[in-house]
């Protein structure tokens, strides 16, 4: 059974559209949802929860249609957004008191455990918390109602490297406990550290859905001066861009045969940069 299955999601805006967005989430895995700003990550996530109404497509959580089982499904998922503050001047304990009353499986001892583990002071208000602590509070809420699926919208944006690393450790621990995580971000180095799979969206269209290792291995980075590239090779290059000492471009590993120019392993960031550049060239 797929934890989350999205099929042919379409949504048209005057200046942007989601085109046939489809993907699946595997249980107990961290899936990175990447794409540059404005690629459609947040719109897709919002469509999952009916914040925006897709023109067409199907969304099912735990094998059940979201539209028909909204109440039951929301009991089993947690949504954590890095950029949204709720009730910034209310004490955390008051927000929790209201929130917990809505969940059938709320576990007070788990809540206390996470509050202590994350070093959260319940007498503080969200406005008194750092960006990282806000994300941790949202996580504590999600985990205390035994969410089986966490959907995180850019949770690490705006965090310092240490806080980001802390959060990634937490995500990996949760993953080991069987919790499934969908993690949207444009900070690809975070995914290098913790993701199992990636979904790559560009201009509202899913460009790749793959295991992160095989996705990264499917590309190499070529570095060249410009004169040493034949016309045949030029056809195979993806997203050629200027560098300090010449040019760099991406090439599919399967197209490497016969290439004599120096190439190196690609990382997610380089792949993303060159793929995004490809559209501009």
């Amino acid at each position, binding site marked *: 059974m797929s934890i989350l299955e999205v099929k042919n999601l379409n949504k048209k805006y005057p200046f942007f559209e989601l085109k046939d967005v489809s993907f699946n989430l595997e249980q107990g895995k961290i899936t990175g949802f990447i794409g540059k700003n404005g690629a459609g990550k947040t719109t897709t996530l919002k469509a999952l929860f009916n914040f925006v109404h897709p023109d067409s497509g199907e969304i099912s959580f735990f094998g059940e249609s979201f539209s028909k089982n909204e109440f039951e499904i*929301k009991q089993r998922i947690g949504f954590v957004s890095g950029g949204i503050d709720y009730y910034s001047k209310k004490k955390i304990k008051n927000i929790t008191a209201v929130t917990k009353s809505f969940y059938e499986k709320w576990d007070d001892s788990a809540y206390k455990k996470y509050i202590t583990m994350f070093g959260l002071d319940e007498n503080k208000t969200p406005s008194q918390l750092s960006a990282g602590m806000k994300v941790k509070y949202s996580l504590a809420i999600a985990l205390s109602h035994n969410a089986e699926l966490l959907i995180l919208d850019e949770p690490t944006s705006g965090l310092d490297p240490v806080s980001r690393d802390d959060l990634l450790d937490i995500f990996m621990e949760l993953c080991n406990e069987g919790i499934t995580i969908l993690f949207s971000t444009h900070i690809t180095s975070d995914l290098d550290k913790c993701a199992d799979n990636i979904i790559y969206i560009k201009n509202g269209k899913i460009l790749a859905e793959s295991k992160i290792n095989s996705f990264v291995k499917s590309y190499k980075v070529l570095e060249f001066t410009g004169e040493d590239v034949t016309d045949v090779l030029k056809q195979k290059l993806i997203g050629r861009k200027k560098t300090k000492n010449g040019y760099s471009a991406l090439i599919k590993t399967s197209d490497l045969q016969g290439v004599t120019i120096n190439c190196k392993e690609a990382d997610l960031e380089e792949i993303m940069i060159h793929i995004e550049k490809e559209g501009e060239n």
Partner: protein
Amino acid sequence: MRKLLKKEISLSMHPTAAIFLLLSMMLLIPNYPYYVIFFYTSLAIFFTCLLGRENNDVFFSMMLPIHKKDIVKARISFVVLLELAQIIIAIPFAFLRQSMPVPPNEVGMGANITLFGFSFIMLGVFNLVFFSIYYKDVTKVGVAFNISCIIVSLYITVAETCAHVVPFVKNYLNTNDTQYIPYKLIVLVIGIVIYAALTFVAYNKSVKSFEKLDL
């Protein structure tokens, strides 16, 4: 719904909403446009929706395990409670005002049963106009409130003018409650029925608009 009402009161309500309820005592002012007292409730509703926008109240509610239409039901139920509380608190002050040894309200409608009937209609009109617009786009609270204000101001102007120029209103309805009780009770019942009907229509329209709204 009980949980959602608790959420409305403890997280969403603007603090002034409770304070404005005390303004019901302004019925003791000898000469004052008394409809304005009930209009303060509308102001509290505006502040609450405005605060909700700043606090991402709708986003928070959308993530709770509830149906989207329950968000509308909770907000309108909260508003009805607030409006009824304002009216109930005003009742003893209306009695006091009528027993005060000063001439009747020279501005317009006195603190009598008719005032309550007409105020129910005013609040129903506000609910219909405000929520019909607000739930089309919950980020444009100001637009919904401005339009509602214009309509309610016109209503108050017409209602107060009637108290001076329409003989039946002036001679029968705008009198001390020791007189013409049956006429006034009819106005009160009609007011309550219109309030309930307009608020019900506001709820239905709001649910439809909110379901369609992309957040």
